[in-house]
């Protein structure tokens, strides 16, 4: 007996197994974090703030636009300092932060936990939806930036740079998503969950950076080195992890960005930049991963046991 294609499709649909986790993932991605206006705005902000930062912050005399130094001092700086580290992590935090606590407050979580889906799967579905959202924003905005850059400077191989930033953005994404997701499971008020990571990002990448020079006064006996304060300086570890990628994939000379975050310093004698090597980049990466895992684990176990009403 021959059946038409649509009937065949209908038959296939009816025997497909239903995965509530996937349904929840789809709904979270398309109807919550990844709603089209939010998605487009996030890409536009990511794309525009980079060049804007170049225009207002970088001393044009430092950049020789005729050669590839634009990538080392300009584009790389912008993406690490502002777009990837700050804007991207703020976008992710804002998208992730209210997820669990907001749903508990609004009563939608009560509906979810009453369905035949485990809390682990609820947590995982939401985590993956935010991860996908963040990954897509970065992939699209980075692709546009790199394509435009390649069109302007065709002599430069953009691909390694693209890969470095993409991998680095995943580190940033996972770190801040774990942190905000963990907080979202523990704290009751969505606003508090939002303020903590955003405040943390602003402190880490802006405020602390402004006051850090005070710790560095005194040359070789500066407080930052004397008391090993770099261990607690997460912005240093982020830059050090970035260095790991740059060193392995781009193989470029140390640039201003690394000086700002104390991964490198000016050599007194000749004004060259040399690496500080306080801790190995692998150590920094492991430290960041450990903090992220700890935050998300505490959040997850709290969520698993939490009374939802």
């Amino acid at each position: 007996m021959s059946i038409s294609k649509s009937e065949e499709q209908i038959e296939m649909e009816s025997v497909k197994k239903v995965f509530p986790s996937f349904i929840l993932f789809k709904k979270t991605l398309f109807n919550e974090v990844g709603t089209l206006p939010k998605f487009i705005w996030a890409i536009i902000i990511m794309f525009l703030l980079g060049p804007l930062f170049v225009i207002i912050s970088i001393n044009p005399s430092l950049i020789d636009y005729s050669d590839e130094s634009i990538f080392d001092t300009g584009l790389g700086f912008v993406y690490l300092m502002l777009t990837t580290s700050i804007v991207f992590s703020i976008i992710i935090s804002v998208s992730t932060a209210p997820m669990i606590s907001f749903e508990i407050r609004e009563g939608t979580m009560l509906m979810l936990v009453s369905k035949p889906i485990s809390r682990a799967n609820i947590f995982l579905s939401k985590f993956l939806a935010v991860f996908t959202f963040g990954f897509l924003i970065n992939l699209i905005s980075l692709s546009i930036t790199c394509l435009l850059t390649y069109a302007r400077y065709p002599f430069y191989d953009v691909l390694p740079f693209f890969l470095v930033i993409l991998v680095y953005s995943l580190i940033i994404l996972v770190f801040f998503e774990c942190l905000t997701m963990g907080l979202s499971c523990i704290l009751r008020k969505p606003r508090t969950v939002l303020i903590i990571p955003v405040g943390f990002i602003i402190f880490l990448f802006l405020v602390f950076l402004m006051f850090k020079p005070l710790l560095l006064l005194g040359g070789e006996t500066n407080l930052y080195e004397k008391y090993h304060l770099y261990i607690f300086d997460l912005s240093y570890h982020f830059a050090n992890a970035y260095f790991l990628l740059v060193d392995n994939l781009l193989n470029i000379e140390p640039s201003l960005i690394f000086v700002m975050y104390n991964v490198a310093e000016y050599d007194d004698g000749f004004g060259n930049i040399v690496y500080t090597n306080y801790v190995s980049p692998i150590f920094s990466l492991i430290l960041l991963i450990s903090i992220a895992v700890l935050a998300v684990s505490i959040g997850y176990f709290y969520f698993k046991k939490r009374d939802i009403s």
Partner: protein
Amino acid sequence: MIQKQAIDTSNYEIWTQELTKYYARGENQVKAVDSIDISMASGIHGFLGPNGAGKTSTINMLIGAISITKGIAFVKGLKAGSRKCRKIIGFLPQDPGLYSKLTGKQYLKFVAQMNGVKKLEAERRTDEFLEKFDLKDAENRKIETYSGGMKQKVAFASALIGNAEIFVLDEPTSDLDPIMRNNIIKDIKNLARNKSIFVSSHVLSEVELMCDRVTIINRGKIITTDTIKNIKKMHTTAKNIYLLDTNSNEKILEDLNGKDFIDKAWIDEDHNIINIMPKDTEALQKYIPEAIIKNNLLLRKFYQKESTLQEIFLEMMNEEGEEKNVN
């Protein structure tokens, strides 16, 4: 001590033993549910109590939203809160949280699929429920634009749309206008033809209309659990009040007050009817016809007063309050 092995819990729709819930610890500890036993057979079982009695906490333990501090609970023989158990429960929360950015259609389809209903079937059921609850015209509007009544309809439809074998409804008619309330009650009664329903409410007139059996809870403890008929019967027998209405109530009241088989007799001014509390019921029943004939009166009504669930409930709550004050 809990003796689970002696009971076949699958014989009951809901079965709990010494079910207890504490919130917080130490000095701030609140005993929301205090060692309650429920044995619910099929049909509609009402769960009554004033605000803060522990109804919602009990329900939330049954669906696994909050942890059980002590005791055990089973729904159709499945451990309360387990994934299998949640699959067979259609749950309507007291304040249903709806994803306001979804349309009514998207929401119902989402909930159906979350209950394990396959895509095409979920779409079919969504259409069916939108039609049934008169939401078809608003199906593509976001829920945030719906009125309170429409939201309640969506929430109620979402509780029914899965493959539930038993429904747990927490205050299903709160915030509804009388027409909607009446419709929901009808729906619940229709649903009860082939499914069991555990419904909490403090609107007692509705409970009386819907339920076969009720459990009354206050301050986390069960006060009584029985059929409405039995509760009324017991209460009526215990109170033993007779109502008498004639064309001259004042005259016969004077007559009654002097009799030794009468404990108390008075006129209920709201209804202009005589309330009689007899010491000897048989003597009263013999005397009334004689008195009517002797005084040449017209007998309009003479019957034993049946308390409404509302009266019984209020009285139980008062007794509880008095007991607490004594203690």
